[in-house]
């Protein structure tokens, strides 16, 4: 009887620990879980941000749709690419088809002096498709889709869905270019030109020119996942087009927050002395 009672107490305590433990590990405290990147990226996806990990939707469901039957991409999404080196997001075996000058420039950008000129730590916009380990938000309407970017600087992309084409003249080169979108079945296709050449594709320093033409394809196969591929065609810097693959997880119980990179960035720049390894 006594042993049964003791056994019962132990059992109750064990159950209590099992039930209680998950709720005691608050966000931000030591997390030893090792999550593999999810998604369809054949290269394995990006580096998931631990600050966002606990916000990823744990359940799934059908693809939400708008009144006109299109997939509704509106949501807050986590970053979906590895932006240390864009080549990581290629299919296994693929290589970046750099032209010789672009390869040399990338190599030249390996020095600390060059890294200090990376637009990102200087708080300039990322361009396309570079990302930050912060969320972004898609706001979808029938005629316009807006990407709201928490970082690198607070910024936005407008995807015009009204059937109009790119301006044929007087297109001022810009960080995010001119984007026009349409639906191919359940896939949102975004065509962008009109980039300036001021951004780097990644922290490694892979360059591009103003001839850059980017085609993005976004699919929301279910509630919690946004799959995308980005085809980069820049005859000014690459010998042929190439495609990278990404996956963004749906984030719940969060929204975009302020991130003003420029506030105190100078303090970091002066300490950049090493390589990125």
């Amino acid at each position, binding site marked *: 009887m006594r042993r049964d009672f003791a056994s019962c107490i132990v059992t109750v305590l064990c159950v209590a620990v099992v039930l209680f433990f998950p709720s005691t590990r608050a966000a931000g*405290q030591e997390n030893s879980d090792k999550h593999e990147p999810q998604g369809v990226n054949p290269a394995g996806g990006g580096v998931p941000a631990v600050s*966002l990990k606990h916000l990823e939707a744990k359940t799934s469901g059908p693809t939400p749709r708008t009144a006109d039957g299109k997939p509704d991409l509106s949501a807050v999404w986590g970053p979906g690419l590895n932006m240390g080196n864009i080549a990581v997001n290629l299919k296994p075996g693929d290589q970046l088809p750099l032209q010789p000058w672009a390869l040399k420039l990338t190599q030249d950008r390996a020095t600390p002096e060059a890294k200090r000129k990376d637009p*990102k730590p200087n708080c300039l916009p990322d361009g396309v498709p570079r990302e930050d380990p912060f969320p972004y938000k898609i706001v979808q309407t029938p005629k316009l889709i807006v990407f709201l970017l928490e970082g690198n600087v607070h910024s936005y992309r407008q995807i015009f869905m009204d059937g109009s084409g790119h301006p044929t003249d007087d297109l001022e080169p810009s960080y995010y270019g001119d984007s026009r979108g349409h639906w191919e079945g359940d896939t949102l296709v975004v065509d962008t030109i009109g980039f300036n050449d001021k951004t780097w594709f990644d922290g490694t320093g892979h360059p591009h020119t103003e001839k850059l033409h980017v085609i993005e394809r976004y699919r929301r196969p279910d509630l919690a996942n946004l799959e995308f591929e980005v085809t980069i065609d820049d005859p000014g810097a690459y010998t042929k087009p190439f495609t990278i693959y990404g996956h963004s997880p749906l984030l719940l119980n969060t929204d975009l927050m302020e991130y003003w990179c*420029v*506030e105190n960035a100078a303090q*970091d720049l002066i300490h950049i*002395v*090493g390589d*990125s390894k």
Partner: protein
Amino acid sequence: MRAKLGFAVTGLFVAALATSPAFAHHAFGLQYDAGRSTTLHGVVTKVEWTNPHAHFYVDIKDENGNVSNWNMELASPNALRRLGWTRDILKVGDEVSVYGAPAKDGAKMANARTVTLADGRKMVAGLSEKDAEQ
């Protein structure tokens, strides 16, 4: 005691930190030497809740009793909020332990990976999953 045990465990994973995690603002390896990651104990003297990185400063006493002030870099405030931090979680005068990587340029500066607060809570301070591998 709990903190000491935690840092003993984290020490086993120092080698695993010699990678280049994605960082909000700059690549980690440009500024910090993960291979020399260590634990520093001291008293908070100032907190800067700023972008692109929050910072706090800690007076650290060496074995000879000499005190030096170290600048500890954290993730950005938006990332820290999502990790459970608040701007007043660190207060001047708090005794803390910081596991982090020192600056490559020799400055008395480190990137904090985890911070053990005065009340014993151990907070992840970095941004990426690799930052929290220790």
